[in-house]
């Protein structure tokens, strides 16, 4: 029995590696980020009438510009669609009669510009703060009492 134990101990010793080796290897990580544009609308705007009730605008006293954040990580541009009418939810009478609309925007943050009306390239990546202004103007007549709703499309595209 003693001999058997000795033989087993020797066999076990031989079977064990002479030295414990520290094994290392590299684990690769890869990732792909698509060039994308994200619009985060942070607030709608408010239109206010001027003293003569001939313009409704976010730049008039009491008006508030609409705001959005545009985050881009590639080559993109922003623009506003022209507006032809107030929304159907507008309750004021004759809202669209003799009315023209104008939109403009200011950029801050990663890209800056003031009073832009067309397409602006976002030459810098990151978050750009967009401030959107809307002005409705009566060529004749006045904006009658009631509520006015309008929707401005802010577009981001390559």
């Amino acid at each position, binding site marked *: 029995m003693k001999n058997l134990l000795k033989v087993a101990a020797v066999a076990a010793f031989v079977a064990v590696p002479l030295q414990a080796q520290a094994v290392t290897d590299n684990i690769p990580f890869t990732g*792909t*980020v*698509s*060039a*994308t*544009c*994200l*619009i*985060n*609308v942070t*607030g*709608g*705007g*408010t*239109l206010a009438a001027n003293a003569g009730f001939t313009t*409704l605008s*976010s730049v008039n006293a009491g008006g*508030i510009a*609409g*705001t*959005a954040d545009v985050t881009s990580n*590639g080559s*993109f541009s922003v623009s506003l*669609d022209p507006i032809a009418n107030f*929304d159907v939810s507008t309750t004021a009478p004759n809202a669209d009669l003799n009315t023209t609309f104008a939109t403009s925007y200011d950029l801050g943050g990663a890209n800056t510009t003031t009073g832009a009306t067309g397409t602006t390239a976002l030459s810098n990546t990151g978050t750009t703060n967009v401030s*959107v202004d*809307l002005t409705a103007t009566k060529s004749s007549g006045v904006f009658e009492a009631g*509520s*006015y*709703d*309008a*929707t*401005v*499309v*802010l*577009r*981001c*595209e*390559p």
Partner: protein
Amino acid sequence: MDYLKIKKISATSFLGCALALSLLPHQAAAQAMSPMRGEVKSFADAFALKVFPANPYNHRIRIEVKVYDQNFRPVTGARVSPAEFTLGGRFARPVNVIVPFEGHAKRKVRVCTESIPFPSQPKTTTIKAQVCGKFLGERIQ
């Protein structure tokens, strides 16, 4: 007879679109829409795209996916599935778009994700976010 003809074209379209779909990137990320550029080659009379509209907000929003040509005229023959849906906060989902060539060898389209995040706020001006990707379909004869 007309019925059989339509059925044959549809089957061809399906195979071509399935091939085109497999060539597109399938990754989805927390963005407004991904991818935003792409070129698709198709053997069929239509080409297919897969885009991933995403909701960057913490609340649910209503999303519409529309297809426009280069002059922002709606492409009436395009099929979008689903075209309108509600998307939960911080979530994205795939949308399939099939655009007919309508006789052209190449067709450039814009696929736009549109949303109105705050329709019920007591504001008189609403900003409608529109993120558009540009895609080129090329028909292989």
